[in-house]
């Protein structure tokens, strides 16, 4: 993993006269040269609008865009994303016209991958399109208390409008999901028709505690009771291999920018049977087959859910990010993050007055660590670390309900990626010691 630092131009910069130590990967990851170049190259060589043009540039752009869709499908089937370069390869062009876009097979079909702006938009798509159409007044949605606002706010707001109920599954004191609580709540709905849980919306990995939830078990439990499952995979896609068909998950959402991809690109995976039934979310061009005064007919999935011109260049660059991350091998990244977390837990554990939140076991919780220094506000910790060139996050992390559950207003958060190393952890520890000195704690 050490050699990959050279692939990320930004890691060479200084902040406040000190070498940048970037530990805010849960917020966004840095980009490798290949991804930056791919976006630049598209604008320099193949830029055109997609899906409608007949001319060469339009065909090239369309092929590149749809290629990323194919790569995403492979990625979510836990298959190796092929290493052929995005540009200049003869098979990349014209591939779109030759291949049947509605490919079946054992893996994810291309029609099951929708590109959005980000994970938040992906979740909103499910809320406005699927939930709105299929949930009735009185139906219930189960959320965990550790959800990011993206997987909390849409459900609450629409529940208010349409008369759905929201139920919560709690965490245990170690920050892990209370699976017994979940079983009880999902199970009880079968007996009482008044509060049937139709959807379980849960995060794969907490952006505050780093806890990894057993989504395979959760999906089994939910399906036994005929509830659908949406998984927020924003934090997990970058290091935990996912096979959506094996998991049998109904909806899975994530953002490209948290896995070395550009901003402005999100993914929604949904089972094709669901997509066929779902009405569109955003409407306009490209998601229709025909439009007249009397009638409008929708396009097929996935394009039914991709209205207007997308972030074409971003999606194409995302394809490069998929290739890049696949070349590192997700499970190796996960091993690296696990080792680094164990080292960080060990070193941070030696600091007096440092409070670590969540499970201190890198097997079930890793890559993301929330902490506080007793007697010092998290913002002050972050500002002083910033003076040392260290980037961490402080605040409520878009998870107010979890903050309340933990009994804190804010925490400091350090999060690791493939390019972080022991030196980064050592600098973090030094920085925290400086905070202690300044505040005399």
């Amino acid at each position, binding site marked *: 993993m050490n050699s990959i630092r050279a692939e990320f131009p930004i890691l060479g910069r200084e902040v406040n006269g000190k070498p940048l130590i970037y530990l805010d990967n849960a917020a966004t990851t840095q980009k490798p040269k290949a991804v930056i170049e791919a976006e630049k190259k598209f604008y320099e060589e193949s830029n055109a609008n997609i899906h409608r043009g007949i001319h060469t540039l339009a065909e090239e752009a369309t092929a590149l865009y749809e290629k990323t869709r194919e790569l995403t499908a492979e990625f979510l089937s836990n298959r190796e994303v092929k290493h052929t370069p995005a540009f200049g390869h003869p098979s990349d062009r014209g591939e779109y016209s030759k291949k049947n876009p509605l490919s079946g097979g054992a893996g994810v079909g291309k029609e099951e991958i929708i590109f959005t702006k980000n994970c938040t938009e992906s979740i909103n798509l499910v809320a406005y399109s699927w939930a709105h159409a299929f949930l009735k007044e009185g139906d219930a949605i189960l959320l965990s208390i550790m959800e990011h606002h993206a997987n909390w706010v849409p459900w609450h707001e629409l529940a208010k409008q349409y008369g759905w109920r929201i139920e919560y599954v709690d965490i245990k004191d170690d920050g892990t999901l209370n699976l017994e609580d979940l079983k009880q709540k999902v199970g009880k709905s079968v007996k009482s028709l008044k509060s049937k849980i139709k959807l379980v919306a849960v995060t794969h990995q907490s952006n505050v505690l780093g806890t990894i939830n057993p989504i395979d078990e959760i999906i089994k439990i939910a399906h036994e009771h005929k509830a659908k499952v949406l998984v927020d995979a924003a934090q997990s896609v970058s290091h935990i291999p996912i096979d959506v068909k094996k998991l049998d998950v109904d909806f899975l959402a994530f953002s490209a920018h948290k896995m070395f991809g550009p901003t402005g690109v999100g993914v929604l995976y949904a089972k094709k049977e669901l997509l066929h039934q779902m009405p569109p979310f955003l409407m306009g061009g490209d998601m229709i087959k025909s439009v007249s005064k009397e009638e409008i007919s929708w396009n097929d999935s996935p394009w039914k859910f991709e209205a207007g011109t997308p972030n074409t260049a971003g999606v194409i660059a995302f394809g490069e990010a998929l290739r890049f991350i696949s070349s590192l091998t997700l499970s190796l990244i996960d091993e690296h993050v696990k080792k680094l977390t164990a080292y960080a837990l060990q070193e941070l554990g030696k600091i007096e007055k440092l409070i670590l939140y969540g499970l201190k076991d890198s097997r079930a919780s890793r890559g993301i660590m929330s902490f506080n220094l007793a007697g010092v506000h*998290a913002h002050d910790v972050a500002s002083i670390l910033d003076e040392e060139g260290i980037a961490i996050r402080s605040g409520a992390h878009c998870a107010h309900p979890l903050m309340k559950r933990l009994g804190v207003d*804010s925490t400091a958060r350090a999060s690791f990626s493939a390019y972080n190393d022991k030196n980064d952890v050592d600098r973090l520890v030094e920085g925290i010691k400086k905070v202690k000195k300044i505040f005399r704690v």
Partner: protein
Amino acid sequence: MSLYRDEILDHYRNPSNFGKPESFTHSAGDVNMACGDGQEVFLTVRDSMIEEAHFIGHGCAISIAATSLLTEFLKGKSVDQLKALGESDMVTLFGSAVTSGRMNCAMLGLKAMQKAIEA
């Protein structure tokens, strides 16, 4: 110049005019929901002049130090002068750059004081 130099930390550890006074003419509170910092401010105003300014509250070093500096500055100033204060004035009081991410902290006390005199 570091935001966390000794004089600022002094204002955090021993804030000036900290504590609820026996008497005051105006008061207001403000809370930063994003981080839980909260302050309550107390002003004694006579003939449009600020005679006394005090505060209580909890929060980050920047928010406490800012309001402490502000209470020292405001004594003997006019209500109009208080109304005219903004972000750049808080930066001047600090004597060093306040990053945009911490501006909310620096402005907490000032916002409460401006709320107090509007009431």
